[in-house]
């Protein structure tokens, strides 16, 4: 994940939003417990959003403010700032 982690998060949002949009074309069958297949896809997108939040924050420490470099990031003059893309 990049220093501020915004690009992977934007990418995850686009994918998950696309999943929920695409669910409109999903089939009713099979029914998983009481949920039709397309609704399971929607729930997958929603649970994916939960997972993305946990991974970004707990796993990668998003967001990294000034003076809080990413693990393993090069620091010092000439290595670039913490600005968002």
């Amino acid at each position, binding site marked *: 994940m990049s220093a501020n982690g*915004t690009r992977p*998060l*934007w990418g*995850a*949002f686009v994918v*998950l*939003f696309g999943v*929920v*949009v695409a*669910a*409109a*074309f*999903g089939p*009713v069958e099979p*029914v998983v*417990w*009481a*949920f*039709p297949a*397309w*609704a399971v896809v*929607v*729930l997958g*997108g*929603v*649970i*994916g*959003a*939960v997972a*993305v*939040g*946990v991974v*970004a*924050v*707990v796993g990668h420490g*998003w*967001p990294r*403010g000034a003076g809080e470099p990413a693990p393993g990031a090069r620091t010092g003059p000439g290595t670039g700032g913490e600005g*968002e893309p």
Partner: protein
Amino acid sequence: MSAVALAVMGAYLVLTLAIGYLGYRRTGSTPAEYFLAGGTLGRVVFPLTMFATLMSAFIFLGSAGFGYIHGFAWMAMIGVEAVAGIPLALIGLRAWRRARAAGYITPTEFLGDAYDSSAVKLLVLAVQFGWSIPYLAIQAMGGGLLFETISNGAVPFWAGGLIVTVVTGAYLALGGLRSVAWSDVLQGVAVVALLAAAATYLLPAIDPLAITDALRESGHLAPAGAVGFFTPRIWASFLLMNTMAVIAYPQMFQRFFAAESERSFRALLVWWPVMALIAAVVPVVLGAWGTQILPNLGTPDQVLPALLQEFAPAWLVGVILGGALAAMMSTADSLTLTLSSLVTRDLYRDHVAPDASERRETWVGRVAIVVLLAGGYLLALPRLGTIIDLAVYFIQGNALVLPVYLAALYWPRASAEGAVGAVLVGQAYFLAGTFGPAPAFGFMPFVPALALACTVLVGGSLLTTEGPKPASPVTGEP
């Protein structure tokens, strides 16, 4: 049932007032203290107040009613708000950094500064204010209806609406955002916990597996919904609209500015989707299942209270309907506070009394709160259906303003001319598509209006600027 439910709701209102009083004792007299709680909302309060601000009584009554009418399809429309938590945190953090550097209090102050234009500020203020007033009225209507229903008419509509308006006005005028945020913690927890309690209690009684075949036959399991409303284009329109509106509502965007630190946004990114997941699934599926348990309900919005009355003890019905009251008040108070800050900062301070002291500004904010709530209450009294219709457009009208906010945050070449054109063209096409003959091409009118607004924003900005704007001496950003 009514006596128990009324007692629970009365206790809830007293507790909210007590929290408001505690907030008042901790609140200073400056506008930043009053409207933004001094920027002190941390990892617990910040995500809960954001969630409570978004969730209105609709989630208890309207969302279950839509589940009853359309079926599971409505789950996707609310579920996308969980996915919207990602851009909410990303955009919110960026807006917070700008606001913290420059000391903004209102979203329109930020816009006016970003575009260096009073015209952009006043135009967006007028648009968001205009869409918000009917929404304010509908909260008072909700309070009146809730009390009237629970008391079987013993508390009339006008009295129920008045009680909710007065209590909201009291804790809001006293403590500003600090009172709102602290009461939002109670309200946010209540919304999530009571929805979970409703599901836990009703699931064994309903036995969803036994009614799945009947639901399939009635169309309640189809993505298009039982009445075929959600065509793929309408589906996509709703998802886009709900995602954008969550960020663009003035009360949500202003709340970004009140975060204590970047850690507040970490908590938002983690907890928002969890809370939104519960809010998306529980009322909709209970509403859909309710079609088989309670067919031919005259008022679909009553499905959740009716299910509870059928299967749950009276005290639980009262507690859960208290949750609806909590959700309603947490939206009304936040919206009123934001509107009063717009009046105080962007109209009174900028155009009426530029030399007014901060203490005077805060008092003007308090007076504006009383006037706004009184106006909303008076608008609610005639129970006009058109007000409810207008409130539905609150979502779309606000979502259409989001490109102007995003361009101010992310696109250095965005110009005031482009922004003014985008707002005017977007709103005009939306109104023409909603109330007139402008084509929507199978989508909701919001979608072509959004496409036009974005085109005008980009085209207008490219035509009126020659390159990126110089960095601001305050924020260091364009």
